[in-house]
């Protein structure tokens, strides 16, 4: 029987690693969808349609996890027994937090003044830090297998990721 509990990487036939080529994930996703999507079973019996639906939902879930760096890292750590987002782990280096606060102030200012140029400047800086953290995650998870350390980096990444989402929302707000 089908094993719904197969992990996302196994499901996609991929090596469990943080450093994954996005086009590889996309290709695996498209190949599986081509076989199991409900549209392929539109004229099949009820049972097959229901299964196709369940499988597609499962594959979409896996894809959403694997393609986002944050979700992928969290999932990898979970597979290795580390709950990175555990509410008890909230300690952060002071200088990192100072930087976050400074960025947030700039975000509020850009929003208040509807200043797209300064928002774009902030966007680039934050994105650079996100990229740096992604490289750090790749090294910690894929090479050094230091999952505890990776969890700390991931918590930082979460801050930056959230800030990026707020920057996006600010564009919406300014542009109406």
């Amino acid at each position, binding site marked *: 029987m089908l094993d719904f509990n197969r992990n996302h990487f196994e499901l996609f036939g991929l090596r469990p690693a943080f450093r994954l080529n996005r086009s590889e994930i996309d290709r695996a996703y498209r190949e599986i969808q081509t076989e199991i999507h409900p549209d392929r079973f*539109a004229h099949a019996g009820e*049972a*097959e349609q229901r299964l196709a639906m369940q499988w597609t939902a499962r594959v979409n879930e896996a894809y959403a996890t694997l393609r986002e760096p944050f979700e992928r890292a969290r999932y990898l750590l979970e597979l290795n027994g580390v709950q990175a987002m555990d509410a008890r782990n909230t300690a952060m280096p002071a200088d990192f937090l100072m930087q976050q606060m400074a960025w947030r102030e700039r975000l509020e200012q850009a929003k208040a003044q509807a200043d797209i140029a300064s928002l774009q400047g902030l966007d680039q800086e934050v994105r650079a830090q996100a990229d740096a953290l992604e490289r750090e995650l790749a090294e910690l998870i894929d090479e050094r297998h230091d999952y505890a350390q990776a969890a700390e980096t991931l918590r930082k990444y979460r801050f930056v990721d959230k800030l990026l989402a707020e920057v996006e929302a600010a564009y919406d707000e300014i*542009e109406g």
Partner: protein
Amino acid sequence: MALLQIAEPGQSTAPHEHRLAVGIDLGTTNSLVATVRNGIAVVLNDEHGRSLLPSVVRYRPDGSVQVGYEAQAQASLDPHNTIISVKRFMGRGIKDLPDVATLPYHFVDAPGMVQIKTAAGVKSPVEVSAEILRALKRRAEAALGGELIGAVITVPAYFDDAQRQATKDAARLAGLNVLRLLNEPTAAAIAYGLDNAAEGIYAVYDLGGGTFDFSILRLTKGVFEVMATSGDSALGGDDFDRRIYCWILEQAGLHAVTDHDKALLLAKAREAKEMLSEQPAVRITAVLSSGELIDLTLTEDTFNAMTESLVTKTLQPCRKALRDAGLKPADIKGVVMVGGSTRIPRIQAAVGEFFGQTPLNNLDPDKVVALGAAMQANVLAGNKGQDDWLLLDVVPLSLGIETMGGLVEKIIPRNSTIPLARAQEFTTFKDGQTAMMIHVVQGERELVSDCRSLARFELRGIPPMVAGAARVRVTFQVDADGLLSVTARELSTGVEAHIEVKPSYGLTDEEIARMLQDSYAHASEDMAARNLAEARVDGQRLLEATRSALATDGEALLSAEERAVIESLVAALERALAGDDLKAIKQATDALNQGTVEFAARRMDASVKRALTGHRLEEIDV
């Protein structure tokens, strides 16, 4: 060269080889129906050779109904009973309609969705839309010479769950088997992409009569993948008409006009807008009911100036979708223009400017959605097309539930690929709490009050525990039509309370049945005949599906005994279908459905294995 076959009128074209299925573009202003004939998608015309059906329904005191051009011709004479642009009211409450005061209808506020008081009684927008669909169904069955097995009906991508559910209910009411609700820009992308063998990232700019959609799709080797979608479900060509209408009032110094004059001037405004796409200036003349003469000249420049803010408003969703997809305008390989309103030259220019390229206009913007829907209907009906393609669409707006303090916890973010299921756990707030209110909302904002409320239901029977000890898992499921269902379950004690909701604005099966009865009072069809016909279609479909599954995989996946069991169920259903006993047909259909569950699971398993094997082989190549 083989000669094309033409069936005798009134006779089905080879019923076992080609299943009759159509695509329907249920538009705000106009609707169309299309099908795939001899491998080519074509729009089906009415008996006068007209492809469009104005989305106008008129109710008369004797209960009879006019639809389309007939109804449109009476709009200014009978404005209260002639419903125009009903799509704007689908799944909407009275407070959602910004322009209630300017509309000539007698609205009745009903829970969930407005209703309209007409000469033939109170009608819900679902019933009005069903009349349009029924007219298209009749047109299609007359043209194709047989009963339809189903239809793909398009909806604006930005339609929320309430609007989608209302559309599906309208189709059920019209006696159509809905193969799929398909997003309009996605339908357009299918028609365009298959026609042009397109690969890469394309955008669809779809400005209809009452809705605006913007979608970004990636086309790769026959897979149409929606990357992001955005829009405004209350912005369209109608708004351009209204700007002209207001300008006429202002220029003519009119303050209050009768409903008759309003309908007349709106029609004139629309005519002027359409003519301005061809010429630099247009003369608008009309005689009002008071005898007053209106004679004005509207230039393109004046028109552009008064509608500039509307054009600009369409670019915001474009920017949002690009950001959601992580793309820049330059990443877009082509912008497909859809909807009659995109004929407006200023819109063409604005879109061209924004994307730095000339928009694509090589398919008729009025027909492209219906054609794409017909292609998808053909595939879903099981007619093998030459091209094998797959659609991966998304949910347009985030879905979540209300948590403490009136805040929204998003469970499914916008632009998630459907179908999908996602669960999240919640807990109790007070000691001994035994029930929990689950309030389902849709929208992007953080406060519940700023989002659309879809449904409320209570989960009862939670065992009394200290606050925070209960574990309630709420599961959201969105099907391939983009429709949501929600279940909640208490996990911590093993006691399961379980409820399925259909959002509150959705019609119950009883309501649908009542409306069907009402509509049959004016039609020759009767309910029992309809039920039998439907059961027969379902049974026949299952029979064919099972036979084809047995032929392909019976040998490999079933033992001789297992196969014999299924074959005996097949034979039983065949016998039932030969008779007229509704109950027997339903029972035999259910029995075959039950009896093939395990076989279905094995077939799915084989499909997944096939996908993985294919993939691993490629992996080795790398």
